């Protein structure tokens, strides 16, 4: 059996992202309460924000952010995880681990949540 990475597939800013499950501490069916759009995953990535966050994802490294939709779990065979081309890698945030390629022309980004500049886990420490 080939190795696979289990991903929590979410949507933020109208785009799909894969979050490695070992880096996800919890998912709550409620929007993150502080900072509004600034708390959205898309915002943390520097991508355009659209839609409303409906869920809060807490990371095992202590961050948290909002996503507009939780699409489910997906076992990504490691053979389908790709590095981004060098032409793109020089510009993208370190929190983008690579890309998952599916059947046809489907593709979504896989993130490294430990490198995501997400909200602090303790909102009372933020002003």
């Amino acid at each position: 059996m080939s190795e696979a990475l289990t991903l929590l597939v979410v949507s933020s800013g109208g785009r799909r992202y894969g979050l490695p499950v070992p880096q996800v501490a919890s998912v709550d069916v409620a929007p993150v309460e502080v900072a509004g759009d600034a708390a959205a995953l898309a915002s943390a990535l520097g991508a355009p924000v659209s839609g409303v966050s409906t869920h809060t994802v807490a990371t095992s490294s202590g961050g948290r952010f909002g996503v507009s939709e939780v699409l489910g779990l997906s076992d990504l065979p490691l053979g389908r995880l790709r590095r981004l081309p060098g032409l793109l890698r020089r510009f993208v945030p370190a929190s983008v681990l690579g890309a998952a390629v599916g059947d046809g022309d489907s593709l979504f980004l896989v993130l490294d949540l430990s490198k995501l500049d997400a909200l602090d886990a303790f909102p009372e420490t933020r002003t």
Partner: protein
Amino acid sequence: MTTSFDGDALLSAAERAAEMPAAAAEESFDVLTFWVAGELYGLRLSEVSEVAKLPAITPVPGLPDVLLGAVNLRGEVLAVADLATLLGLGAARMGPDARLVMVNAGGERAGLLVDRIGDLVAAVPASRSGGADIVALQALLPDGSLVALLSVDRVVEALSRGA
């Protein structure tokens, strides 16, 4: 492909051909022409690895305007460049005839988004473009028209700068 007869264009081409040095005539090479924002451009065919229909483009955060994102082309993840923006002609138009012209540069493949493919023709150099311009030279086509031939190396160098 030209479907109508244009006598003036033919005569102009004949005059240019007559003026061309014999050595230049021997430098004929194959060019793939394509349209970007209403302008005709070309690449040496030897620098084109493939022409592909436009797959879904996945936006990637942090990219400059000249890079549109990534595509999955038969399992290969490739960067897509907006040639129109790079040429200062406005944003790309992703109509039904849009294609990705795949080029090899800097050890990897990249897709250049064009409005539509033109033709595959033999051309000869007409004038060279110096400096850092991404247009390497003007090439003379068999119908007497000129096409701006892009330099793949300069295109990729500009993309890597985000320019």
